[in-house]
């Protein structure tokens, strides 16, 4: 049962994310910024929803909506199925639906990184912000969703500053880049060499490029592969036999080749360090067997890491992040209740009005059965009784400060007095 399922403002979430939908479906329902704007306009234009925000990332497409009066998740599913040219049944099978507090809780958890593949990742917070921005530009986020998204972003920020959920990197490449950044400071002035243009080299080059390294070079025994990589990722190709001569210019060297013998030798690094006047060098060996001679690690001011070392750190860091989950969930709940409290206040007034209307209807029905001469006196009596009887419960309902209790009581009033029935 939804806590805030009052007819005036019903909150609903319809989504496809990595937990319920496979990648084929997610690809079909993914939105780019223009599509988000278009979908939002159509949703409002067709009168399907009163407010709407769409969060679309590579792992999720989630539509948060506010209905005024009647509105159903099935209508939304049908709309998106039609929009994407899919069968509604296919789409609804792999979607999930949440209402009221559950929908809000989901968004807060998403913003906090608690629903992400890499627990606590920060990128999603920016994506939630971006979703709100697009909806604001399209005029589809108003009072409720605007407030909900701002509260969710605040919760996400709190989780990341008050817990250690985002402190430790969790992938081998990100750990390596963070270690390198702690040696060199600003990586945007540094030169990175990737040896090998296979899958691992490609992955690392991409991450290094995203991290904004200054110059990125790739070198491979098969020049075509290096050139292929250079086309996919913005980097320059260095001929394989030229690489040792270029070593002194490299701040970070990453080995990813399938060579049976080490390709970076101690003697070469010693020579490079002499030319660099002892400025630090950073080596990362992601190859099996090794690309970088182990003795390189013994040279003064050389930082050298292997795949195994960093995989272990990644495991430890993931475990460390998991330990932060209870604290993060507590923050999410705290911020969620603040939002629901505000939402509850929105719901008190309509509930009280409905309650009065229901009383008046029943009073008038009863008065009809009374002799006409007495009706006026009886109406006065009934109103006085109404005032006396309902004054205290109404006052208590209004003054309840704990959002959870307030919402439960509102729900109880609506249920006991059948305020949600239209007859």
């Amino acid at each position, binding site marked *: 049962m939804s806590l805030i399922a009052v007819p005036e403002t019903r909150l609903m979430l319809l989504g496809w994310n990595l937990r319920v939908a496979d990648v084929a479906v997610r690809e079909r329902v993914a939105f780019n910024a223009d599509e988000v704007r278009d979908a939002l306009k159509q949703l409002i234009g067709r009168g399907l929803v009163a407010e709407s925000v769409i969060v679309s990332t590579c792992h999720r497409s989630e539509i948060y909506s506010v209905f005024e009066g009647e509105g159903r998740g099935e209508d939304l599913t049908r709309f998106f199925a039609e929009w994407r040219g899919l069968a509604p049944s296919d789409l609804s099978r792999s979607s999930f639906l949440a209402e009221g507090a559950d929908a809000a809780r989901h968004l807060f958890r998403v913003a906090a990184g608690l629903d992400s593949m890499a627990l606590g990742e920060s990128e999603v917070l920016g994506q939630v912000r971006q979703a709100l921005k697009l909806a604001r530009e399209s005029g589809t986020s108003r009072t409720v969703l605007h407030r909900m998204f701002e509260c969710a972003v605040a919760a996400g920020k709190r989780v990341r500053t008050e817990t250690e959920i985002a402190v430790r990197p969790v992938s081998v490449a990100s750990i390596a880049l963070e270690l390198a950044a702690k040696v060199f400071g600003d990586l945007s002035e540094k030169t990175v060499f990737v040896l090998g243009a296979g899958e691992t080299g490609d992955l690392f080059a991409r991450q290094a490029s995203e991290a904004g390294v200054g110059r990125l070079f790739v070198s491979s025994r098969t020049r075509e592969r290096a050139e292929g990589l250079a086309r996919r990722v913005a980097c320059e190709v260095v001929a394989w036999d030229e690489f040792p001569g270029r070593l002194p210019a490299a701040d970070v060297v990453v080995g990813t080749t399938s060579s049976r013998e080490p390709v970076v030798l101690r003697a070469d690094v010693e020579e490079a360090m002499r030319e660099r*006047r002892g400025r*630090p060098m950073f080596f990362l060996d992601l190859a099996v067997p090794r690309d970088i001679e182990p003795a390189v690690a013994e040279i003064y001011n050389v930082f050298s890491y292997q795949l195994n070392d960093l995989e272990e750190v990644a495991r430890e860091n993931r475990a460390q992040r998991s330990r932060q989950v209870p604290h993060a969930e507590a923050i999410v709940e705290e911020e969620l209740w603040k939002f629901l409290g505000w939402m509850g206040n929105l719901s008190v007034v309509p509930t009280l009005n409905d309650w009065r209307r229901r009383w008046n209807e029943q009073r008038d029905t009863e008065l009809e059965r009374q002799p006409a001469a007495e009706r006026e006196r009886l109406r006065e009596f009934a109103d006085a009784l109404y005032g006396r009887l309902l004054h205290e419960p109404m006052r208590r309902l209004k003054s309840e400060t704990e959002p959870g209790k307030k919402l439960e009581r509102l729900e109880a009033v609506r249920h006991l007095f059948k305020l949600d029935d239209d007859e």
Partner: protein
Amino acid sequence: MGSHLLGWAAVSLYLAAEVLAIVSLRRPKPAADVAGAVCLAVGLALHFADLELRARALGSVPYRTLEGSVSLFGWMLAIAYLALWIRHRERAMGPFLIPIVVVSTALGMLLPSRVAPVSAQTRGALFALHVTFAILAYAAFTFSFVLSLLYLIQNRQIRRKQTGILFARLPALEVIGRMNRTSVSIGLVSLALALAIGVARAQRLWGSLGDPKITWAFLTLVVYALLLWLDRRGWEGTRVAVLSIFGFGVVLFSYTVVNMYFSTAHNFR
């Protein structure tokens, strides 16, 4: 020498800044950062007022006495850190540096007061410049000492792949190295000036350069100059950090043992 009410108020504010710096190192909060900087700034103002009162009571510069010079040292250290904070928002040093500020400011009020009458030695603008430059040099070398400790800590974290809070909050090695180079350079220039003025005055007042303090100041200069030279010749990194810590040992020895037991002109008697 009075009750140093202002001085103690400054110490309390420095302590508050230290607590906020530790809080901020654990969980960075802009509000705690700014509050810490404000505590430090107000502390500096009160500390300055305390030095001013000392000067009035002495009828000369406040650092003619041992307590006064220790207190001025704490003040300079604090103002250098505040400048670094304002310029670079560098807060990781705070928890390590502010305790030295607190201890030296408190020592400046706790050490037994021994006031020698003003003499030809302790009068005039040159004397004031000599002491100011010397204390500035000590403050810069203390800065370098703290930076070197941070360097060794961060280097250890990186080598051991410990990517926790301290790793995240401490600056990169290259950044610490750069700040260290700046501190040592400021220290070297200041000490060279202090030494030059000191030597000129020694010649004029006593006609001799026999004061062991001169030898030690010269030795300190050599250590730090060597540090800068080696830094450009392949010693950049932990070796320079260790040498800086050694240099600070020389400074401490010169400021305490040499002042008290070997130098007659620097024993504040």
